[in-house]
């Protein structure tokens, strides 16, 4: 009976070691819009994200109001008219690293990863597939990705006055520095 209890405890411990979770509350997501008229850049250093190393599942949460622009008016337009951050304060992504056998999250090294999942912005959910790199370190995981989005896909209407100042395709940069949870 004692032995069984030890086995169970060991089993749980092993399971826990496998189900290692990584987290960050200060990840970075930025976007960039280029038009001949104007380059617009916004940064957000308050992205919360959890990565499950055993399944490769990923969750991102970000506040629209945490995006910071160089010009105050852009930030106002972005929040009030484009993304309506009062009504829809968050953007979320839930997905998975699809090539998890190749991406060994328990072994140190740098891997190319593909992530697929659902991205919700402005209350509209779209499938997203993005490529990135994952770097497994001693005490954490760094993950980077770059992909493009179209504001149109998320029911974001841009008024005619500034339509030429904002690109049809927005480049998104994701830089995450995960730390192991409970280590």
């Amino acid at each position, binding site marked *: 009976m004692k032995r069984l209890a030890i086995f169970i405890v060991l089993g749980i411990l092993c399971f826990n070691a496998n189900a290692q979770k990584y987290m960050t*509350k*200060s990840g*970075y997501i*930025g976007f960039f819009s280029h038009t001949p008229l104007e380059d617009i850049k916004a*940064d957000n*250093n*308050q992205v*919360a994200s959890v990565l499950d190393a055993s399944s490769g599942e990923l969750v991102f*949460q*970000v*506040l629209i*109001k*945490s995006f*910071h*622009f*160089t*010009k*105050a*008016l852009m*930030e106002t337009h972005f929040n009030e008219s484009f993304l309506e951050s*009062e009504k829809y*304060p*968050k953007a979320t992504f839930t997905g998975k690293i699809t090539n998890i056998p190749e991406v060994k999250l328990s072994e140190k090294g740098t891997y190319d990863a593909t992530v697929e999942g659902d991205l919700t912005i402005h209350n509209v959910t779209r499938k997203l597939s993005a490529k990135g790199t994952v770097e497994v370190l001693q005490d954490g995981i760094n993950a980077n990705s770059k992909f493009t989005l179209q504001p149109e896909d998320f029911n974001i209407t841009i008024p005619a006055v500034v339509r030429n100042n904002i690109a049809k395709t927005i480049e998104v940069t994701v*830089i995450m520095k995960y730390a192991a949870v409970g280590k």
Partner: protein
Amino acid sequence: MRLLENKRCCISPEHVRNFKLPLGYADKGILSCKKMKPSVKISILVAWLMGLVGLFIGLYMYNLEAEDLQKEKPEFVITAAGLQKAFEDNEAAANTKYSDKIIEVSGIIESVKPGEDEAVSITLKTESPLSAVICTFQSGTAPAVFKIGDQITVRGKYSGFLMDILLNNCVVVK
């Protein structure tokens, strides 16, 4: 010179005299050297001024940078623990109360992260192990200012609540 002054008129009696134009011009009523009414003049001037003022306001607004909270007065002064407690008690109410408000928060620095784009973030300790106050500073704030364990007072704009209370555009008060 006189010709320039009279540019707005068609043909003045002076023209007829000076340039020896056929007298017929004067007879045919082309001689209509009306001066612009003062009221018309003023309204044109006002329209121009309004346009200029509009242009300057537009340019000013367009170039306006994010507000410097060092110059703004906080709407709430609270400790990090107190702020977290408010969210734990009633997240929705606290979220409405602090929405877009400038909050001055004091607490002990738990962690410092350099962040991308030189936007340093610090975490202030609360009584909860799961939820803290995260303040992200204006870019260009040196991370060396912050030491883990130090007591600090910062001023920032409330952006919202994920797992933590998020403040943006922060400045160090004390």
